[in-house]
């Protein structure tokens, strides 16, 4: 009964999404107020039924209703309650429903805050969100219905993929989807602006917090996925350039570019059509990711059931949404003229460079991801693009990006000159170069050009981000009022610097040893002595495991005991590696069990990873920066007339 209720609720939501997508849009085009006012009841009604539908699916999981095919395929009566909830979005069908839930959530959020917006404009935004919802719900109901019954019902379920039975992965998809789907809001703003044929500073001010919050979720979602891969896959890597990872990274790059381009559009009224294109791109790349992941056109380590039927549907959806948006863009963009110019050196120039470099980085990732598909489609044979390509090519645009970042933060609008900025930043510049060369040498030995560049770049970004706040602390007489927007920018850029340090140290100075060990034997790795003490069986709610005990000492002193496991889940039977990790800011020690080699010997992997935690810490700072930026009070001011605030300058030269 409950699953049927869920399906029924989803059908009602589908019908309401048509109302939401069509009536306010027509109302806004024809000036029919009553129709425009229908936006709010339609979006809230749609959301209520979507939430109800989702609740029914969660309920089916909690009740172990194995007469529902999706539940039977992805859960088990022995599965812990937390994972029964997260199993709801553990596979294709449920994750599509989660996507719809997020979209409904964003729709309601926009509608609830639409008092800030002109009525017609808000109606258009909500209508576009409704049309996107319609597409996704239709897709879910037609090709991926999570409520399909299994007759006869299974006695017990086939269990959730053991890889997904993990707290970080329980919340990773919701975070990621909040980000993906959040870009739908910026997309809808762009469509609404093009339909109105008008785009001013107020438009950018409305679009900015929505874009930033989506970006925050995406940043944290990607970081969670990376963190999970690090400790759960048993390889100790933090990023694999897998197509599915790239699918989340490309919208992030476009979203990052959009945030910066929106700053220019708001403050100076420039880059208008470019901003629109980025707003379309960020969401389009989210959709593209969905297509790549679910249609089976690319090979990935991520196990989504792939099905060409679904692929055709998503492709048709893609053509409708993206094609429609780009056609509208082709028609309307030439009307948007930026009348002001800007100096050769100015904040505008730096932000333009930022955008160009981010887009190059995006194209590098896109090309590498789609290359196997291109070659195969043209009969060029089977290719796979390895991490070596990405690692080598990705730094080409990103090194200048981070170097310019420091200057950009301290440049001013309209007209600036380079020697002024350079003079102002001579202290952080000198410090970054000296420390960037010396620090890796002193800490880890084995200096190289790449580590010097990496450390210098990271320290440069940190130094320039903190330059004003630290300067303000040291010199009390310099009273500078710093807006929340600027604070957000400082914190997020500081996060980038931290992230770069983490990546550089981890990539350059990690040590890993794969070795066969018997109980009682030990190995020495960079001063650490790792002793294989014992092996014992262990059990969990739905798995049995072999647990090893390793004692790690340094110079005879006990450092830590680690207990990695090799788990076999009862239902799905594939072995899982639970690494033993001793983490600290300075370094992680990581032990993973490989395979039993007969006798008491096991293959094992030991890793020493310096500063690896800074990678995720940096992402947390980026997210935090975004949150601070959107708390800026100018986003909360109700705007009476849209052109009132255009062209006003922020204090302290902040970009936000």
């Amino acid at each position: 009964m409950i699953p049927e209720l869920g399906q029924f609720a989803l059908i009602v939501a589908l019908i309401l999404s048509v109302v939401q997508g069509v009536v306010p849009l027509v109302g806004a085009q024809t000036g029919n107020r009553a129709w425009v006012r229908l936006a709010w009841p339609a979006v809230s009604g749609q959301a209520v039924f979507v939430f109800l539908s989702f609740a029914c699916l969660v309920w089916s999981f909690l009740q172990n209703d194995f007469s529902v095919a999706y539940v039977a395929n992805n859960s088990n009566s022995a599965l812990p309650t937390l994972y029964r909830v997260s199993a709801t979005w553990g596979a294709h069908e449920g994750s599509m429903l989660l996507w719809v839930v997020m979209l409904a959530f964003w729709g309601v959020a926009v509608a609830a805050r639409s008092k800030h917006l002109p009525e017609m404009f808000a109606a258009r935004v909500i209508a576009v969100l409704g049309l996107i919802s319609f597409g996704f719900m239709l897709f879910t109901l037609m090709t991926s219905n999570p409520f399909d019954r299994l007759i006869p019902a299974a006695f017990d379920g086939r269990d959730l993929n053991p890889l997904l039975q993990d707290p970080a992965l329980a919340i990773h998809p919701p975070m990621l989807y909040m980000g993906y789907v959040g870009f739908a809001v910026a997309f809808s703003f762009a469509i609404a602006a093009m339909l109105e044929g008008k785009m001013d500073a107020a438009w950018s001010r409305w679009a900015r917090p929505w874009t930033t919050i989506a970006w925050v979720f995406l940043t944290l979602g990607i970081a969670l996925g990376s963190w999970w891969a690090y400790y759960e896959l048993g390889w100790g890597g933090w990023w694999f350039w897998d197509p599915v990872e790239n699918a989340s990274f490309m919208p992030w790059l476009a979203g990052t570019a959009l945030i910066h381009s929106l700053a220019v559009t708001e403050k100076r009224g420039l880059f208008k059509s470019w901003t629109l294109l980025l707003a379309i791109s960020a969401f389009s790349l989210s959709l593209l990711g969905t297509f790549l992941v679910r249609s089976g056109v690319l090979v990935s380590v991520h196990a989504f059931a792939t099905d060409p039927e679904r692929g055709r549907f998503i492709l048709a959806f893609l053509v409708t949404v993206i094609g429609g948006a780009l056609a509208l863009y082709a028609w309307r963009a030439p009307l948007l003229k930026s009348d002001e110019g800007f100096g050769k050196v100015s904040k505008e120039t730096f932000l333009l460079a930022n955008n160009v470099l981010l887009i190059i980085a995006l194209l590098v990732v896109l090309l590498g991801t789609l290359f196997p598909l291109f070659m195969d489609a043209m009969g060029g044979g089977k290719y796979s693009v390895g991490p070596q390509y990405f690692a080598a090519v990705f730094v080409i645009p990103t090194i200048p990006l981070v170097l310019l970042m420091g200057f950009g933060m301290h440049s001013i609008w309209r007209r600036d000159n380079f020697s002024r900025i350079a003079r102002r930043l001579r202290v952080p510049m000198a410090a970054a170069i000296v420390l960037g060369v010396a620090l890796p040498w002193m800490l880890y030995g084995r200096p190289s050009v790449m580590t010097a560049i990496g450390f210098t770049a990271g320290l440069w970004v940190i130094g320039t981000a903190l330059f004003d706040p630290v300067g303000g602390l040291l010199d009390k007489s310099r009273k500078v009022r710093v807006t929340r927007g600027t604070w957000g920018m400082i914190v997020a850029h500081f996060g980038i610097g931290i992230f770069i340090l983490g990546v550089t140290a981890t990539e350059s100075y990690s040590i890993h040893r794969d070795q066969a060990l018997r109980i009682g034997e030990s190995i020495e790795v960079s001063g650490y002595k790792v002793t294989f003490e014992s092996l014992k069986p262990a059990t969990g709610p739905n798995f049995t495991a072999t647990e090893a005990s390793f004692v790690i000492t340094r110079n005879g002193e006990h450092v830590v005991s680690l207990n990695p496991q090799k788990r076999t889940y009862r239902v799905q039977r594939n072995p899982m590696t639970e690494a033993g990790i001793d983490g600290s800011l300075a370094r992680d020690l990581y032990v993973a069990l490989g395979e039993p080699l007969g006798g008491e010997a096991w293959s094992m992997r030991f890793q020493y990873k310096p500063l690896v935690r800074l990678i995720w810490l940096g992402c947390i700072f980026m997210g935090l920066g975004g949150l601070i930026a959107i708390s800026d009070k100018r986003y909360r001011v109700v705007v009476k007339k849209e052109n009132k605030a255009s062209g006003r300058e922020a204090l302290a030269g902040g970009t936000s």
Partner: protein
Amino acid sequence: MWRSLIPIAVFAVLVWFFNRGLGMDPRIIPSPLIGKPAPEFSLPVLGDRSRQVAMADYRGQVVMVNVWGSWCSGCRAEHQTLLAIAATGEVPIIGLNWKDEDRDAEKWLHDLGNPYQVNLVDVEGRTAINFGVYGAPETFLIDKQGNIIHKFTGPIYWQAWTEELLPLVRQAKEAT
């Protein structure tokens, strides 16, 4: 004006590629073993571990070797098709039970039906490695001389059998 058409033009090219990509399976990788002798093996029989069966026992016969495991969802998907193929009597199917527990495999055959003439136990997966298997299910056609003539990756479906595998089986049976 035409500058604003660039994005949609780029997108159109991408769509063309995606549409072509949908008709192809990136997982199908041509096996280097096609045309080469199938790897020799001698493995215990499922249900009667004391009996051993070797590749050489099938000289002079066309056989289909199907790699499967009870843990593999794709194998469940193709099982009905395998039963139907077995019912035609065109070609004997030899199961290579890969990295599985005997108990689970026997229960599977008992519950779902047994399309196999014989099932060989490859617990450690060495024979599968020699066949170049990288995921179950995979299916190999082997001719009378013991050469691999075809490899099918992923779950077999009925159309693949009638259009792709069956013609090869018939052709191989007619050859001397």
